[in-house]
């Protein structure tokens, strides 16, 4: 992997972001940096605007104020050509997978490729879709299936395959393990980690899953009081004396996640 080709040291740089829906203010003066090559976990209680933050960064939600830079480019002031160039460099996995229901899994993976690289011949597109499907851990017979025929976990993997179609440098994952069984969730975590290592991805990961945070996140950003109140490794966060953070990581579920990580470390896994 070569060094990132943009100024500054953050892949995503959010400054003074403000979002509101009518009277309700979701974000106020929110700052966040995502460093190249890291997996940043974003946590926060329900309704703290984790998804809204992601939608603002990828340009689906027009913020009231603030600046958002991705790869050093201000996403709020791009002309349509620049916006498309930027979109080629990131992939997004939505919560439900958001697969196009009239296309098969493999055809879903081909959609971004066909859109941006119309000159590729169909045989090459089929091959690319095929190895992407296999790389995301789907069985080879999943290619010709329609989204309605897939289980929740397979939909997420198929969604991930599509978000990786353009070999992005930056990946947005919105609650990738929500609704998966523990085995499926652990497998998805491992897949995320291995793809991140292999492809040198920067990952922006929204999650509620403490196991995911412990297992794969390099740093964690905590959303509360309409802004990011802290960013750091879990140990750094635990050193802070914030009630919500303490409650989150030291609650019964937080402790269970820690002990499972420790057990895994002790058995040399």
């Amino acid at each position, binding site marked *: 992997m070569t060094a990132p080709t943009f100024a500054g040291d953050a892949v995503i740089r959010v400054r003074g972001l403000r979002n509101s829906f009518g009277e309700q203010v979701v974000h106020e003066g929110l700052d966040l940096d995502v460093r190249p090559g890291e997996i940043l976990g974003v946590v926060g209680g329900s309704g703290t605007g984790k998804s809204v933050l992601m939608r603002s960064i990828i340009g689906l939600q027009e913020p009231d104020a603030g600046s958002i830079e991705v790869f050093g480019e201000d996403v709020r002031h791009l002309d349509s050509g620049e916006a498309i160039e930027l979109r080629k460099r990131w992939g997004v996995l939505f919560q439900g997978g958001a697969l196009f229901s009239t296309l098969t899994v*493999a055809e879903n993976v081909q959609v971004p490729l066909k859109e941006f690289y119309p000159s590729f*011949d169909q045989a090459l597109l089929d091959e690319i879709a095929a*190895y992407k499907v296999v*790389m995301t851990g789907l069985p*080879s*017979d999943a290619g010709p299936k329609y989204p*309605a025929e897939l289980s929740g976990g397979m939909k997420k993997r198929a969604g991930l395959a599509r978000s990786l179609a353009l070999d992005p440098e930056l990946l947005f994952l919105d609650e990738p393990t929500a609704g998966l069984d523990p085995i499926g969730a652990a497998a998805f975590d491992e897949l995320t980690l291995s793809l991140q290592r292999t492809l040198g991805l920067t990952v922006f990961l929204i999650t509620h899953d403490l196991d995911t945070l412990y297992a794969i996140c390099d740093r964690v950003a905590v959303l509360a009081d309409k802004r990011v109140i802290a960013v750091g490794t879990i140990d750094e966060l635990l050193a802070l004396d914030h009630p919500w953070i303490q409650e989150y990581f030291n609650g019964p579920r937080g402790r269970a996640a820690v002990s499972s990580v420790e057990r895994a470390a002790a058995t040399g896994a």
Partner: protein
Amino acid sequence: MSAPADFQHDAADGGTLRFNGNLSLRSIGDLPERLAAVEGPVAQLDLSGIDRIDTVGAWLVHRFARDHDAAVSGLGTDSQHLFDQVAGADRPVEIRPGQLGTFQRLLAEIGEAVIQAFRTLYGLLGFMGATAMAFGAVLLNPRRFRFHATVHRFEVVGVTALGIIGLMSFLIGIVIAQQGAVQLRQFGAEVYTINLLGRLTLRELGILMTAIMVAGRSGSAFAAQLGTMKLTEEIDAMRTIGVNPMEALVLPRVIAAVVMLPLLGFYSSVIAMIGGGLLCWISLDIPPITFVQRLREVVPITDLYVGMVKAPVFAAIIAIAGCYQGMQVESDAEQVGKRTTTAVVQAIFLVIVLDAFFAVFFTEVGWN
């Protein structure tokens, strides 16, 4: 951006391709075509000169190495890892389901459509039976009747439809009278416009147009509501609690439609006659008092009966088709849209078929 993907062909030592530049999707250019055009034996793929490689570049190199039985060398640790992952993912994957030939597909589609038509008819009949049973159960045990739900449906199906149905009927009355007058004037028989208007609206158009409007307004809403409730598992929750969805959801809707459609149809006929009467007054100089007198002379009371007998039957068809299609929704949201469309098409089709039967029937019994 770094240099685009490129390679040199070195024919020495059994052939070597030396790659350079950026082997990633964005700068891949015409590399696939040029690789396909390489001739002569190639034993070595040297990647030590490249700046960057991503999965697409790795795939192209892997595919070439596989097809030419060549060895790959010169990758850094990370790139080698990436390459191994991509090479390891080389398994046959089908892209789309198997396709039949055109003729076979045509036959298969006809066959499926026929089976589907019979299955729907069968299901609709069964659903009618279930509705009748729910009605019977409520009759035996009137305390189970959902009075409030039914009255609420009266409002949704009937009262809120008054505006649009009134406007539609008024305009249709005007159109019938105007067209009738134009044609009948050729025989000097303009006065028969009133016969045409009165009999047509009471017997046929008032009820038929109202039925079509109610199918579009309420039949579709029934299908969409029940379909959404089915998706969100509300109907399953009801069953678990011990509430019969046929009694709680379907029956109030069917009863509301059966009660409201005759009233709406009558209202529609009256408004249409008012519209037609206004046109007669303005363009044929027939004053309202004469218009009403003439109506009473030429329109037999049986015309009203014909309309009123048809209305509840149409209503039951519309409501049952809507509820049935809603209850058939499974698994995904796309089905709600499809089922709603089907409900409306089915309801209007059945209403028109039945209308034809009724026309023949009433002529046979002498109400003409």
